């Protein structure tokens, strides 16, 4: 179980690192003044700096509240049951992204919908396949034919002559 305290701390550290990365990146371009006005790094430098400072603020505040015994920080951020539900949604979703860039978005859509319906939703093969194929076909006609927008395609579409 992750408590709210650790979630707050972890996120604040992440945003702190993000801020520092931006600050470091901006320093490359100069944050001072040259003949054409403020140098290109100035604005991102201050934006990144604000992020880093405010993250430190959140860190201090959270730790301070922890010592004051604030009850909200001890609450569960994510318990086992909830975590499982999130993962069971997130993992296929991530797989969909990987499949999209390797096999193309149409194939990924079909595989993803069949998987979620058949193995997570408990539907039969026929219902799952029909829904997945119909969705992909609808997207194909709406996007490629009607709006003339091409989606990412993989190795399979040329074989089908699409």
């Amino acid at each position, binding site marked *: 179980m992750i408590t709210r305290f650790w*979630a*707050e701390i972890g*996120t604040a550290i992440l945003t702190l690192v*993000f801020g520092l990365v931006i600050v470091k990146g901006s320093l490359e371009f100069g944050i001072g003044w040259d003949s054409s006005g403020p140098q290109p790094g100035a604005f991102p430098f201050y934006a990144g700096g604000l992020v880093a400072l405010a993250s430190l603020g959140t860190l201090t505040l959270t730790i301070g509240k922890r010592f004051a015994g604030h009850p909200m920080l001890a609450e569960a951020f994510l318990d086992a049951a909830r975590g499982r539900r999130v993962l069971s949604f997130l993992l296929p979703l991530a797989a969909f992204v990987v499949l999209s860039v390797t096999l193309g978005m149409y194939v990924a859509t079909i595989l*993803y919908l069949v998987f979620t319906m058949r193995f997570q939703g408990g539907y039969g093969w026929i219902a799952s396949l029909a829904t997945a194929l119909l969705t992909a076909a609808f997207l194909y006609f709406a996007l490629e034919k009607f709006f003339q927008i091409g*989606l990412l395609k993989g190795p399979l579409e040329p074989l089908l002559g699409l």
Partner: protein
Amino acid sequence: MDNIANLMHGFEVALTAHHILLMIAGVLLGVLVGVLPGLGAPNGVSLLLPLTFSMDPVSAIILLASLYWGALFGGSTTSILFNIPGEPSSVATTFDGHPMAKQGKATEALSFAFLSAGFGALCGVVLITLLSGWVANFALRFSSPEYFAVYFMTFASFIGLGGASPFKTVVSMGIGFSLATIGMDSVSGNVRLTFEYDVLLAGVSFLIAVIGLFGIGELLLTMEEGLKFEGVAAKVRIGDVLRTATKLPRYWLALARSSLIGIWMGITPGGPTAASFMSYAMAKRSSRDPDKFGKGEPEGVIAPETADHAAGSSAMLPMLALGIPGSATAAVMMGGLMIWGLNPGPTLFTDRPDFVWGLIASMYLGNIVAVVIVLATVPLFASILRIPFAIIGPVIVVICFIGAFTAANREFDIWLALIFGLVGYLFKKLDYPIAPLVLAMVIGDKAEDAFRQSMIFSQGSLSIFWSNALVGTLMAIGLVLLFMPLIGAGLRRLRGQGETRTV
């Protein structure tokens, strides 16, 4: 009177069969987006935006604006029938709307919600009609320092009035500004902050951020809650609607007060969500019978709905007249305007009056179309929610990622959407406000240009932000808004001391 003539011209633009059809399509899509969990108004607009690149801007904005109205209405439908807010701004509607539905007064609750929402929206549009020309004229006097001051005011009010931890608001805002600077710098021509990754050369699009933060993030949260739709069946009969409509004038005070709150929160970037909560709280506090709230009191539906829609429509005023969006959805639309090659702000009124007034006229028509359509299609959209989430959820995921890809036809954006999704989930769970991030991404470049040009005028001295009465006033208002929580606390302490002295 100029405004009225302009508006009539606007109606000529908006009242064509083509545009009315677009309104109907937009409203239907909007209701769908509003009803489905994980898809909201900002998201719907982001997903549809790439499809409008080839349309003419007037048609495109009418379609997107109608989608916005539809989404606001759709969110209330699910709040009342299913106790699940389809939009964050309709959370307050669940408090009394769902109890009313459970008592068998679903039609009454829906009718009250839609009619008062329509009223609120029209109030907002009337305000836009009357004020936009004047605000735009006023803003023509602005130069870079004034613009920077107005941007400062916008973000100061997020920090001071937003309700979230000020640190978290600053983090969210700063991340937005930082992301906006990635890629080509329009002033110096340098490529900034790409860290040698070629995929970052073209920058990070706000559309991907919205799709990830609002769409994927919201879906993850929905899954975690393990939500079940247990709805109340509703059929809407014309007779019931008319009977409810005759009861509406009784609540004139609530309508007027909520419209004012909504308009104020829409113009200042408080947004519809804050407006609906504030309006609900005000209605409850000023009611003779506050105990009835939460148990199915019609005023508890009317107050948040009116304010929600008044805020939603009046958020378009600062977007059009100043180039500052008043809500996340308005921010996405403004980004769209810039992609279509329009420059939101005072010059838009003189350069493209057909666009501005066509849009304003379409707001009147679009909201009326929306009330009619939404009343007619309640059973249809309620039945969509009976499709199990195991099917609907993954389909929404697919649509979000396809939307992310079509925004710029870049493979990298799909990954980016996934990352933004995770960030959105984390930020929502930990009460980081997301709207400032999106706003900062959209106006980041403009804010930076305004800042740099001001600095060039003044040779690097910050005193330029106090150099004349106009910019000084704007900065002062910004500072007051920024320190609002501290000022409020100070006043309370003073008043507290005053009271102890009198006792």
